[in-house]
């Protein structure tokens, strides 16, 4: 069936080669866009693992080396006086705010193994996980009962627990963040496993995540951010009052107060900018490809008028002619896209981009981009085909 349609395609191979090359390029552009959109959609629907509603973040900016260390009195003072405000439900410390652009990475080792696991880290005070509404799967959150122990308490997310301790419980296990065998190995005790903490927001790829316990009494690194859970319905007007309260404690520090909801909004805008830019460019290119295809097909049919006349003369109906032109175009698009798929299938097979391209996303993107290219091809071939099918055989045979 297709064989006799392939024949005229083969006869014009050079022209068709250029045409398929164009379709292939367009397919790749659309595929890139579809892939990105599908991945974003997939990520957006994964749980972030925490609730941003009614939580405000306060960055406390100090200057000078001395203030880099935690001062128990000052921290305790912040905790107490902020909790005393009527609008505030809970206060907890964290070293950098969710939805901010900071990242902190490290390696985690099993005590008897030199190969590390890449993880993202954050420090939190005992109150913070509860304040952020995070979900615990097994074990317990760290708390004041971990105060003064030799091993620092940590909690890890499910993804990391599954990869570090496959088939057994991670709770109670010891790990270390320095390479085993070095002199000053400090052990960390896992007290619990939580669902996830995608602190960069909805479009962050799931990572292995570790939360370390920060003790307000210790002289470690100072926590730069206070998370404040406010009563529902608190307006931004509370900000000034909060700022005055903070200035009472340390007047020489600067404070950045912003509700997490606002930070989330701006982070989302920032994350979707690349997608928007690519979308605009892709639309431009597709409009161009559409016009180009239309022009080329028009010319092709014009050139083949004598051939069509001959087909009509020996009894082909106008529907046949119609079908022939559209089928030829679809076949050509299919060939181009198959070639494209041969190239693109390498992405998930080789795992170049890791988790970003999984089969679900890949297949979704394939379906979307194929449908789009087919739609454009069909639309562009309809009018020329219609013109060709309406020719009267006598005129067509005489056409010069």
């Amino acid at each position: 069936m297709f064989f006799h349609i392939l024949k005229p395609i083969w006869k014009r191979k050079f022209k068709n080669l250029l045409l398929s090359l164009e379709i292939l390029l367009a397919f790749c552009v659309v595929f890139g866009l579809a892939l990105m959109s599908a991945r974003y959609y997939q990520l957006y629907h994964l749980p972030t693992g925490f609730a941003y509603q009614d939580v405000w973040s306060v960055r406390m900016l100090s200057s000078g080396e001395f203030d880099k260390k935690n001062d128990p009195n000052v921290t305790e003072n912040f905790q107490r006086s902020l909790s005393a405000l009527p609008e505030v439900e809970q206060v907890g410390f964290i070293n950098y705010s969710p939805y901010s652009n900071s990242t902190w990475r490290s390696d985690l080792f099993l005590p008897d193994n030199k190969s590390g696991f890449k993880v993202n880290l954050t420090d939190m005070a005992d109150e913070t996980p509860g304040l952020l509404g995070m979900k615990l799967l097994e074990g317990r959150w760290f708390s004041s009962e971990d105060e003064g122990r030799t091993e620092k308490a940590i909690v890890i997310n499910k993804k990391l627990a599954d990869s570090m301790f496959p088939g057994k419980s991670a709770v109670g296990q010891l790990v270390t963040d320095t390479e085993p065998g070095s002199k000053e190995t400090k052990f960390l005790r896992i007290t619990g496993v939580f669902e996830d903490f995608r602190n960069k927001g909805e479009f962050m790829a799931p990572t292995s995540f570790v939360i370390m316990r920060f003790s307000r009494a210790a002289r470690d690194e100072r926590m730069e951010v206070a998370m404040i859970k406010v009563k529902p319905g608190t307006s931004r007007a509370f900000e000034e009052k909060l700022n005055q309260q903070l200035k009472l404690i340390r007047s020489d520090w600067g404070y950045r107060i912003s509700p997490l909801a606002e930070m989330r909004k701006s982070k989302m805008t920032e994350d979707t900018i690349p997608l928007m830019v690519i979308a605009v460019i892709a639309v431009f290119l597709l409009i161009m490809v559409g016009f180009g295809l239309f022009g080329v097909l028009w010319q092709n049919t014009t050139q083949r008028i004598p051939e069509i006349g001959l087909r009509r003369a020996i009894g082909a109906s106008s529907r046949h002619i119609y079908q022939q032109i559209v089928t030829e175009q679809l076949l050509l698009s299919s060939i181009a896209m198959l070639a494209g798929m041969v190239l693109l299938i390498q992405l998930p097979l080789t795992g170049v981009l890791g988790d970003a391209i999984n089969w679900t996303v890949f297949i979704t993107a394939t379906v979307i981009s194929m449908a789009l290219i087919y739609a454009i091809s069909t639309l562009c071939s309809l009018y020329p085909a219609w013109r060709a099918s309406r020719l009267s055989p006598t005129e067509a045979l005489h056409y010069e």
Partner: protein
Amino acid sequence: MLKNYFQIACKVYLRRKLFTAINLLCIVLTMVVLLVVTAMLQATFFPTGVEGKSERFLQIGTVTQVSKNNTRRSPLGYKIIDQYLRKMKTVEKVAAVTGPESVSVYQKDSVNEIMMRRADAEYWQILDFKILSGRVPTAEDVRLGRFVAVVNESTAKKIFDSTAVVSQKVVGQKINAGGQQFEIIGVVEDVIHMNAFADIWVPVTTFPSSQYREQYSGNFNAMLMGKSAADLPLIRDELLQVVKQINADEPTHWEHTYMWADSKLDFFARGILNRDEVPDSGAVQLLAGVVFFMLLFMLLPALNLVNLNSGRIMERAAEIGVRKAFGASNRELVKQFVMENILLCLFGALVGLIFTKLTLVWLSNADLIPYLKVDLSFAVFAYGFVIAVVFGVLSGVIPAWKMSRLDPVLALKGAA
């Protein structure tokens, strides 16, 4: 000869108006996208207006300190600028300004987030802000640490009510930014440029504590202005000596310290390509990358034109046959067709420029990028011409070569 070609081209292009229109549309679309990008890059790398003296000054954004297994990279501390850079012999003026940081402004019962910079007096002399009312801080203001502030027009409107004669009333008002009280002494025009972008500027001496004076790393950018563009290499040379001195004096003792004084283009290239430890900023690579991406973007529209033009051989068959019968060589024909194609592209570029202008006006008015003001410049015209020619050659060669290979006997009969 050229006149003949031109006439033939016009005739041919008017013969099939629909296809010519499709051709043109593709060219115009491509041109608009490329020209908008070019205009933006031009405004970024070679600014006019507030940073119009850019060819006379260099900027330093980061200090990189390296020891065996540690690297610290941060904006400059005020001490480096005040104690070292100001003492350089080759510079005329040195300005220190912090990067923009968001502060909250409490006015009546509303809260606004705006971007604040703290700057010294030289900052206002190196950059040419357009002052709408009032004045900008003087050396005395900075020396005495007066709590004065300059705001831009949008901020003045946002914070104090949005009437047209706003700037007259704003000067003299008090503003509470980031928990400090300032008196507004001037209103300037909105700008987006790299060193000028901010909503409010206050003297550097208004920091809550004077610790900043002792810091080698902090939140400062430095601008070093020479008497003329010819001084810049001398400034770069002297800076190398200064950096050695800083490395020796720095109390934490790093093995190496790196600081580079860069022009705009170099500054961006260094930032994008992470070249903190080598003198060469990689500007050439950056530009090559930009050109490569532009060519890549042109590939699809070019293929499109190739396909369209290949289809138009039919119309020209008789003409080609006659030309060949009278002894025109293939090379001559190729030359002619490529020329025609370039001509069409140039026309498309001209139309594209008009649309680019419209797009830029729209971009400047839409609040996609705050304070963006981009306009066509002579340089963009020149780039447009170059892009059109490249695009014309890219999309004209293959169809021209195919046309020239037509068999004259068949061509004369009109069967392609």
